[in-house]
């Protein structure tokens, strides 16, 4: 299963974090710093999967943003690797329409993520279905 999803900028600052297994608030910053250290300094040609403590990290790099996903030993890295890309595709689809910096709309990114992952499992990957609730809310705000 997926343990957490992190979005970090190039400086390693967390832009968004979502935990699917309880981690104490006080320990998150240290964990994130550690995770980021494990991924950010890897070269482009190096593998996108990193073994970290008793679990694995899958990361992808988009422009100035890194998306790092922590997964358990039994989770399929490739599936998560593609899931990250699917997530970014959905973000692209939504935010290219709304046009505003993604990170300033953290709430909406969270809402999108909530549609895709629940309790650490992939629950929806269909773009239009993922965006349906959010689009409905937007229409509501318009009218």
């Amino acid at each position, binding site marked *: 299963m997926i343990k957490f999803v992190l979005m970090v900028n190039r400086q390693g600052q967390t*832009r968004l974090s979502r935990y699917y297994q309880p981690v104490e608030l006080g320990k998150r910053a240290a964990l994130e710093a550690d995770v980021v250290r494990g991924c950010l300094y890897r070269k482009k040609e190096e*593998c996108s999967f990193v*073994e970290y403590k008793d679990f694995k990290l899958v990361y992808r790099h988009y422009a100035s943003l890194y998306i790092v996903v922590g997964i358990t030993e039994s989770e399929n890295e490739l599936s998560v*690797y593609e899931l990250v890309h699917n997530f970014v595709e959905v973000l692209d689809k939504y*935010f290219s329409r709304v046009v505003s910096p993604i990170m300033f709309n*953290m709430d909406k990114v969270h809402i999108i993520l909530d549609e895709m992952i629940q*309790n650490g499992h992939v629950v929806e990957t269909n773009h239009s279905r993922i965006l349906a609730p959010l689009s409905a809310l937007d229409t509501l705000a318009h009218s």
Partner: protein
Amino acid sequence: MSDVVERTLTALPSLLSSDPSPGRPSSTSKLGTLIRGITELTSKHDEEKLIQRELVSIKEQVSSPNTTMRQMKELMVRAVYCEMLGYEASFSYIHAIKLAQQGTALDKRVGYLAVSLFLNESHELLLLLVNTVLKDLQSTNLIEVCMALTVVGQVFPKDMIPAILPMVEEKLNHPKEIIRRKAVLALYKFYLIAPNQVQHIHSKFRKALCDKDPGVMSASLHIYLEMVTEKPESYKDLVVSFVTILKQVVGGKLPIDFNYHSVPAPWLQIQLLRILSLLGKNDRSTSEMMYEVLDESLRRAEMNHNITYGLKALTYVVQQDANLALQHQMTIIECLDHADLIIKRETLELLFRITNGQNVKVIVEKLLEFLRHSKDDYVTIDLGGKVTELAEKYAPDNSWFIRTMNTVFLLVGDQMQPDIPNSFLRLLSEGFESAEEDQQLRLLAVDSYVSLLQEQPARLPQRFLQVISWVLGEYSSVKEGLEPATVLRLLAPLLDLRHCSSETKSWVLAAMTKLSAGPACLSVAQELAERHGGSLDTTLRQRLHELQHLASDGELLRRVLPCSDGLEPLEVDSTLSFLDGFVSEALAAGAAPYKPPHQRQEELAQEKALSVEPYGLSLPLSLSSSSIAGRLSPTVLSMSSGLSGNSTELSPKGGSALRLEGVTRVWGKEGYLAKAALKPEEAAKTEVPCPLSVLQEGGSAPRTPVVSLPAPAPGPSLQAEREKQQLASCLFMGLGSQGAAGPCLMGKAEPTRHGFRKKVKGQGSSSGARGPSGDSASSSPSPLSAQSAMDNLLCSSPLDSGSTPSPADSAPSPADSAPSPADSATSPADPAPHLPHDLPANNRPCDAQEDLTEDTDTSETVVEGNSVAVVDPYDPEPLCLSPHLPEELCGLPRSEIRPLCRDASLVLSACCVRTDHSSLLVVFVSNASDSAARRFALQMTSGDLEVSRVRGGPEEEEEHVEGHSVAVYQYSLVPTRPSVHMELAGRASYQRPDGEPQSTPFSYGLSLPDFIRPLSVSTEEYGRLWLASSNDIKQNLALLSQEPDPLRATLHRLRDRLQLNVVDIIASEGIVACQLLQGPPCLMHCRLNAGCLAVWLRSSLPELPDCLLYHCQRALAQH
């Protein structure tokens, strides 16, 4: 795609104009300002300052009545952001719930979002959300229903499930797919946190599985994966359904928008394959139903060509069809030289799978190369095992095998898995079909070891030294012209090596003993005896003695260590029938018949269980020896009960026949059979792959359109390219033609080539005469040859723990001193030295230290940042208080600091400190406010305790507690009468700065052990005190029977928990003494009885034994 975010991040111009909501520009900019502000900061300190400022401003605004829901939404997003950075914003939790309750549309959604981010399942505030959820579930607005179901699927209090369950179930029939889907996911959440609550709706899960909407169906798969994992056999009837669904998915029957890069619903496929793999596991008929669709899935799943992550998939797929690897050989070669170690290792893993007789040399060379540079213990051990496996399986010739194994021994060193040297030695000793080959192998081994010892023996790892010693001891005679004395001189210096362990020295000496024939050897032996004869290691000295003795007596040496070539398996009479004569003689002479320990134990327990009255057995005896009637001294008792201790004599069971079953079943040629015999089977099992898991993993690779591998383009690096191709042809040799020399994949039998391992395994069936336990013995991994097996049978030395090889017995002849059955049953224990089984622990770094320091950090910030909440009154122990403990009390035993009470400005905490002659209550008064608490006073009363202030003047003296300081008060407590628990009631009063008197009550609970002190007396004094006390109480207590010495362990537990003094322990009895603080002693006599601890307490104070007994019971009940 990598510019997606770039594009969106740089597309700022139309940000404000196209933003649909009118109130948001400011909100976006506020969060934006915060984010930008944080991005620009350079130090953690600045960040902290900024966030604290932000939190203060948020806090101000959320509590303002004029804040609109829209503003509240914006505030919540900022609070979420602050908390995400690690700064607690607990004040906003309640407002998040309010927002979810009162907001509309997006505001409401953000309220729910904030709740799900802030609160975990067990947070009590979550209960406040239940009503909102209930209301929204009933809403006519589908979006609100949707939100409610989403939050229920994320975080919901377990206890409140029944309140909303009917409503969620109802939603399963909703006409809208999204509602049905969310309802299924909510039920999935319920299943995860409280499976029993959704037990009754399994039929509805089935309905969801058959839902016409693929989204609802895939949602139901989450529940099924959980349920199938738990109990696969209950869902076999669904295999057809899952197979049909998968067939439809793979066949492209889903709407096109479920495709991901033209692959039909890859994540759904993965989910289905996971379920099928669980259902088909170990079930042939079920699996057969899946083959077709699995084949189809696999056929359609094309390899992902991205070299950086396709390897793992390839590794799994390769187990199914090695030819697939052929198509990608150049990619694999690229990966081998990759800078990324993870990729490199995956590549080696892949190569390991495709190894066969033709490419083994190249692949093993690659593995060893990696091994040479590996710094990770886990990798080293893993690769060492792999190389060994390949070498044993596919070794092209003997000298390569020996060379490879030498490298493995050298590189992996002492972390090596113990079965590697074991199986290697067994290989050498048991040999193969051709005796000539065997001899050649041994000769090669001897040759290479002799030269290794001549070079730098000090560098060799222990394991390797042991292997070398054994081989030289057994087979140096194979090499013509190699004098035993020469070998001895090579081995002797090993004993001087500083890093050479005692175990290794035993191996070395064992080898020397085997070789010690002739006068030349005798002189070496004598030299050694002189040099090491004074060693403190008794085993070593014994071995030296044996060596010296046997070297001087060639005749005896030949008898003890007959020089056979060790080819025919040794016949072991595991019934030990040769001892029958000895046993019957002994029995005739009055010896007790042998009983296995477990039987002895049982009988002991049974026999004891008969006596109901704990002291019944010894009473008459002690009466006769003690002149004091009625008043028994326990010390006398313990002596007398020792007399009746021999249970075997009294045992009603056990005839004159020697009990052999217990012995033969457990012990055999190799030692402990039950364990040893299992090992190879287990190993074989792990080698068999589960084809389904293979398929599952393989098929799980998200498909991408077929892209043929870029052909190596001829260019400037033509030379390098050619080299790579050459390497490829070496590596992938034999993979294409499956027939003649196909790759031996894990689990598939190798039809043509017989590797080393194979021959050894087949040996059991071809061997001839064996004892009753012979067949099981043949498969156990023992490096034992005929000779050393004999040694072990001969050895009766109690020094021999069985963990070191015993080359010879110090006794001149086996007939002279026949060992007793029990001894010989234990001494042939595993002749291979026990190689430690401890694998390196997980390389998970211990972050306990880190956590601790972090905790202190936060507690400090809590104290400093007084604008935020102060110490939580129910914190187990406010860490910051222990430094305030008076210096003279530091280091003394104390209870943890517990909060007593708190009000707006003061927090009272207390702990109880035990000194030798008093118990002190230390009260910490921490004033977190800015102003002093004037005229502060503490009053305390208790019905059970006498309370007196220790420091300062008279009681109720008026004092001030300054702002931001901690005042400490000490009170001495003396129990007026013993009681199990004692309660102390008190009141803290002071004047607030505005002159208002303030008073807060509190109470503090203590228990008897706080006032118990050990009483040190001698056994004689104890006896006198015992007689002087009355107020008896007797009781049976639980025994810590898991411990090796239950009585001692139990008494020590009591000593540690209750501060009792264990005066003496004699055989199965113990005496314990303690004293009530400033009160009389209490004595306790304990005796083992029928698996219990029979205690007898006495004290001059009537209530004391009772109360103490209560605490004894509690102390033994807690683990």
